[in-house]
């Protein structure tokens, strides 16, 4: 929950324990019950991990843990971006296609010299640093357009981003002719994004894990330590109140969507390198997984509520479930059912907190 809901004075652990002892048996049960429910997602994760570990001892082997961390790292930035839009009681359907466009821009500029079927017949790969800035800028521009339309024309983000999703994909198809861009330069792939940083046992951990950690820290800083971040929560909880108290609501909305766009561009940059090529399906439906992860992690469509740590937990939980199902040998068809059930149940549990408060 946000700072706004933490208005009660913080108590020391000892004080809390004394308070607890002072309660009668009935209240004690109620406090324990509430605690269990408030931490239901964490408890479920722990139970799940224990269960899968008993069934499949390889689940917590280093190879598997590294795999889950890497998958989480690849999904986290987009979820962090989209969480901002959800905090504003909005959503962002353009995310996945912006990822695809970002991947495409990165791939065409970083194709090997003389690759067969090279997108630009002649030329060398650009410097990676320039390309990443360019890709982030592409994301920021689309995000800016999203935010501008939402703030200025008072359109619901669902409509605006549905439109930009289609436009972005259409532009991508027009420019790319749906060609796959393969043969990416090593300065981009194996020497940067998928470069092994170090090994745990025999399993290398790739560079994009560190990059995702950096992105997370930056986002945490923006959300919690900047005026912009505080304004974002203010606008999300009550736009009118924020406006009256002097917050530039338009700037905040545009800023949140543009920042989200940057995270999509970044994700596109990583995905093309991770896959070894840019294709038309990169990014497809990423926004849906990201939104699901956010709401599982307690970022609420009610608005003004959400924490970076919650988003991280949401993404980790999604990956644990997906990975766990592979370990348990659950077929693809059932996977969808379980994924849907998890989203539904997680949100129902989460919503209970706000319902009791109202």
């Amino acid at each position, binding site marked *: 929950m946000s700072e706004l809901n933490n208005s009660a004075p913080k108590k020391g652990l000892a004080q809390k324990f004394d308070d607890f002892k002072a309660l009668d048996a009935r209240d004690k049960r109620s406090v324990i*019950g*509430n605690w269990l*429910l408030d931490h*239901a997602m964490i408890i*479920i994760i722990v*139970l*799940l991990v224990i*269960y899968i570990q008993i*069934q*499949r001892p*390889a*689940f917590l082997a280093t*190879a*598997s843990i590294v*795999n889950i961390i*890497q*998958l989480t790292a*690849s999904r986290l930035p987009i979820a962090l971006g989209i969480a901002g839009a959800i905090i504003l009681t909005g959503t962002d359907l353009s995310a996945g296609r912006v990822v695809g466009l970002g991947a495409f821009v990165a791939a065409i500029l970083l194709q090997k010299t003389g690759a067969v079927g090279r997108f630009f017949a002649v030329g060398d790969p650009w410097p990676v640093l320039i390309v990443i800035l360019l890709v982030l800028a592409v994301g920021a521009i689309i995000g800016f357009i999203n935010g501008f339309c939402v703030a200025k024309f008072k359109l619901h983000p669902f409509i605006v981003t549905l439109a930009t999703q289609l436009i972005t994909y259409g532009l991508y*198809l027009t420019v790319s*002719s*749906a*060609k*796959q*861009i*393969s*043969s*990416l330069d090593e300065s981009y792939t194996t020497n940067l994004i998928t470069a092994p940083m170090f090994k745990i046992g025999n399993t290398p951990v790739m560079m994009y894990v560190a990059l995702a950690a950096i992105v997370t820290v930056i986002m945490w800083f923006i959300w919690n330590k900047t005026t912009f971040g505080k304004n974002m929560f203010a606008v999300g909880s009550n736009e009118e109140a924020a406006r009256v108290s002097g917050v530039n609501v338009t700037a905040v909305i545009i800023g949140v969507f543009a920042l989200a766009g940057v995270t999509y561009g970044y994700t596109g940059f990583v*995905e093309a390198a*991770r*896959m*070894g*090529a840019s*294709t*038309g*399906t*990169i*990014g*497809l*439906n990423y926004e849906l997984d990201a939104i699901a992860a956010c709401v599982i992690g307690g970022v609420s469509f009610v608005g003004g509520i959400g924490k970076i740590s919650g988003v991280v937990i949401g993404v980790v939980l999604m990956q644990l479930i*997906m*990975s*766990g199902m*592979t*370990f*348990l*040998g*659950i*077929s*693809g*068809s059932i*996977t969808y059912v*379980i994924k849907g*059930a*998890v989203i539904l*149940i*997680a949100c*129902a*549990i989460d919503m*209970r907190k706000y*319902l009791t408060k109202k």
Partner: protein
Amino acid sequence: MKKLLSMVLALTLVLSLSGVAMAEGNTQVFWYSLSDVYLSNVRTSLNADFTAAGIEFVDQDANATQTTQTDQITTAIATGTDLLCVNIVETGADGIAQNVVDQAKAAGIPLLFFNRSISEDVVKSYDKCCFIGTNYEDAGIMQGNMIGDYLLADYEKYDLNGDGEISYIMFKGDEANQEAIARTKYGVENADAKLTAAGKPQLKFYDDSNAQKYLVDQNGTWSRQVAQDYMTTVLAQYTEANGNMVELVIANNDEMAIGAVTALQQVGYNNGEGTVTIPVFGVDATPDAVENYMKPGFMAGSIKQDYEGMAEAICTISQNMIAGTDMFANLNENFTVTDGWKVVIPYAMYTGE
């Protein structure tokens, strides 16, 4: 009450995850899409073959998204599976398949690609790797030849407006898929070759302003619905009354062909006795197309992709790979092994007779 309800929900969640049947997961099969009709026929046969051979398996769905599939494969490798059977999503980019091969190679797990094509260099970069498929150009070539012969048998009948040319519409399953590209090309080229050899003009695309000369499923799913929607739109403008009716339908697969037939039926064509039948051609000869469309004469022909043969070849090679023996041992002699990397399952023409 609310609390009780959410407790129950939480419990259900945990139970739903633990209550599922346990399989050993020795073999992981990665499907391009569980909703693809031809592949679901392969899957039904393969599941039966695997069960009969005592191989434990799990089917995974990439939902037509390569990133999903690559992540599934990475996860499966982390579980220490014995064999990977991959029906790859992206067929045009070697980088993606190479990425998968490199991962399997690093873990020493045998890897079998099937159905969706992989280039020779990629397969040969790993000694425990092979590809089971078709000579993908053959389907289009065979379809084109079939169309040419079919039209020449009664050319005037099919030339509805009597302008001496046959106007056609082409449905492409996926913009970037190599098989779709080849079928789109040869389906027309080979029919043209037959027609010109018999002194007839080439086929004419129904819409002069479309330079691509095909309509493509933008989602790349070779979908019945997409073809039906296109065809309905086309038939609103192109009719016998206007003298510009589409006189031939060529589709990259049976699903798209069936979509076109459905659209034709809605405006009174291809409905058996008493109605004009526009020749519609597909590829795959799926059970649905054969039983419900070709036997009653609503669809003119298709090219049979032998799904049972495909499943049989996958199963035999899987057994060999798991046992660590020669990959191609005990293979049915109908299948040819090309150059030590590719097993070819032959196509056949099918007209519903």
